């Protein structure tokens, strides 16, 4: 692992639960690493596998999917999301990317402790595994993208 490595952590936080949860952490003046960046999303179910892999290829080291869990306001979205992440981690495992880089969890609007625990744990894991092998991630991203693209042909056939 490179000395002075500071991982970049992306948190995909649901608008209804985890994003207000991350706000609650700030409102409580609880501190965590400034290497953690939160994106607001309606539901992370919208991201294809290649988005995650592309983010790793570009320079993100860990992604925390902070969803609503069973409180998800969208029907079936959480189950679909969980399946997508299963497929993603399977691909990462096959392609030699550390699966610790991705984690799906539920964070509620007042889950301050859970949020802090998740980002701290992710930080600790990433310090252990070091930076992403960007070339590998790029390769997997292209592979996932290509599979999705060719799924059109499979449907047509």
């Amino acid at each position: 692992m490179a000395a002075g490595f500071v991982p970049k952590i992306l948190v995909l936080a649901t608008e209804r639960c985890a994003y207000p949860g991350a706000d609650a952490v700030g409102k409580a003046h609880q501190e965590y690493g400034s290497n953690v960046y939160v994106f607001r999303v309606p539901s992370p179910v919208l991201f294809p596998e290649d988005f995650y892999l592309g983010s790793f290829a570009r320079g993100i080291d860990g992604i925390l999917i902070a969803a609503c869990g069973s409180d998800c306001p969208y029907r079936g979205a959480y189950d679909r999301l969980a399946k997508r992440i299963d497929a993603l981690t399977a691909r990462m495992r096959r392609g030699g990317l550390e699966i610790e880089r991705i984690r799906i969890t539920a964070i509620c609007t007042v889950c301050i402790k859970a949020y802090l625990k998740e980002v701290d744990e992710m930080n600790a894991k990433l310090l252990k595994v070091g930076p992403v092998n960007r070339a590998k991630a790029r390769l997997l991203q292209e592979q996932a993208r290509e599979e999705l693209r060719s799924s059109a042909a499979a449907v047509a056939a």
Partner: protein
Amino acid sequence: MNDKTASGSGPANSSAEPLRIGVYICRCGGNISDVVDVERVAEVCRHLPGVVTSNVHTFMCSDPGQKNISEDIRNEKLNRVVVASCSPFLHELTFRGAVQRGGLNPYLYEHANIREQCSWSHKHDPQGATAKAIRLIAAAVGKLRYAEPLDQIRLPNQRQALVVGGGVAGMKAAADLAGRGIPVLLVEQSERLGGQVNRWNRVFPTEQPAAELLGALRKQVEGHPRIEILLRSRVTKISGFIGNFQVTVEGQIGPAGRRTEVAVTVGALVMATGFLPYAPRDGEYAYHQHPAVLTTPEFLELLRHAPDAATLQFQGRPVRSIAFIHCVGSRQVEGVQEPQADGKINNYCSRVCCTTVLQQALTVRQRFPETEVYDLHQDIRTYGRGHEDYYIQASQAGVIFFRYHGDEIPTVALRTDAPAGAPPLRLTFKDYLTWGEELTLEVDMVVLAVGMTAGTCQSLVEQLKLPCGEDRFLQEIHPKLRPVEISVNGVLLAGAVQGPMNIRETLAAAGAAAVKAAAILAKEQVELNPYVAQVDADLCEGTGQCVEQCEYDGALRLVQVVNGDGKARQRAEVNPGLCVGCGACVAVCPARAINLNGWRLDQYEAMVDGLVAEAPALVAATA
């Protein structure tokens, strides 16, 4: 750094105009600037691609702060705006308004959260916080490169309401809606209004007769010129969306029980279908194994008809002792209680049963002074105003309390060997008001304080795809901020359909639901947020994979279109009234032809690029 953000300020979207982005950084009176070096952030951001102005202001949300934006849009010909300040939940709408007042589409605006998620979270890391603020703004700038002007979706509004369920919640909602001038169709499945409250004698904490309370509510709805009441009727079919729900109500009219069907179109709908009392399984606490094991509603029925006497009588026998058991069907513990039909236990508190038990126990002591009362509880949760008085009065009236633990629930056994006239039931439990001593009680009657269960509106839940919680009750959007709304627009929640509530809370919820429905129906058109899926017709290959992902009937479908070359082909089409904007469709499109407005995939990718841009690249121009 990805080439998309590195390629200068050229337009990324379909419009040909070059990007002219204004960045505004708020000090928040020190809340941000005490930690984040905002001057430096402004300096660095000035050099982000497409940014033409980057300023610091003490309070961006103030009038002068907002004016700054509107004026710059006009003077500097800005076509995109970023404000870096507090959480978007506070001021995103404020700044969209300022952008609009400047003459720009309000959706060409991005918000960077550098207070809750930066200065307040990284107080002891000012350098890190400053770098993070820059990256968050770079991400927002990146997102704006792919932003498109959006309009609120406007749809015609059918300005009448449907209220499903004619209990206290339904009557209250109907009365309040009609009072605001809105025509209401009130549908009740039984032969009379009043719901569960019809079964009750007196309501706590006022001790008002339930019939009187119901009478007052009925007076407000019966004969009201704007309320049509359909009894013995059910909503059988429902489809559509806010402003335009198509509803079929099936009912029976007249003694012949002739079936009728009514079709109506309503703009909003209030779910007031209430709850069902928990029905204990056969054998649960000896229920249905002995006639003297009753539920609280059954015991109320007994009390209603029993004449006052020294001792309560049941089936011709004196009841010298009664044991109430709390939390039957509520606060169940995994592995201790048998799961319900769906495999889950009811781990929630039903909230009203404690006070119900105390009220009934007190009634027994007052009307039948020689009947002993025992109370077996996990906790006493008399949480409402005036409820605790019941506990105090019951204690003073000689009710004897025991406390059991949820993982060691009492057992009720039949005393087959009991001599004639002796108590037929034996309770065994550990009492934790003492030291966990094992006790047995021999009693003439056991009353099970049953909780509330959901499942009164399964057909509507399925047809409208209404989300339910783990407890099976309908789930609001936000328990505090949006407590009577549900993720299906135009549907409001009134009362216990959403979870255990007492009458006071139910009526408060019903009133709130009525106001929300009235606000929807006050307008000629309904306006919806534009954050729905959109199909790029040029890219769509019509494979239909997106449609398979969609959980909302009619929101996304395949249609035949004829091309310029005269050939018919399929492509996906979104109904913006039905799309809820979850994005499940986006992930599977092989052509990236479908996206969520305002949350496009390419926007997220550009945001990642903004985050990962190396600091030297960001600050190079400042050297």
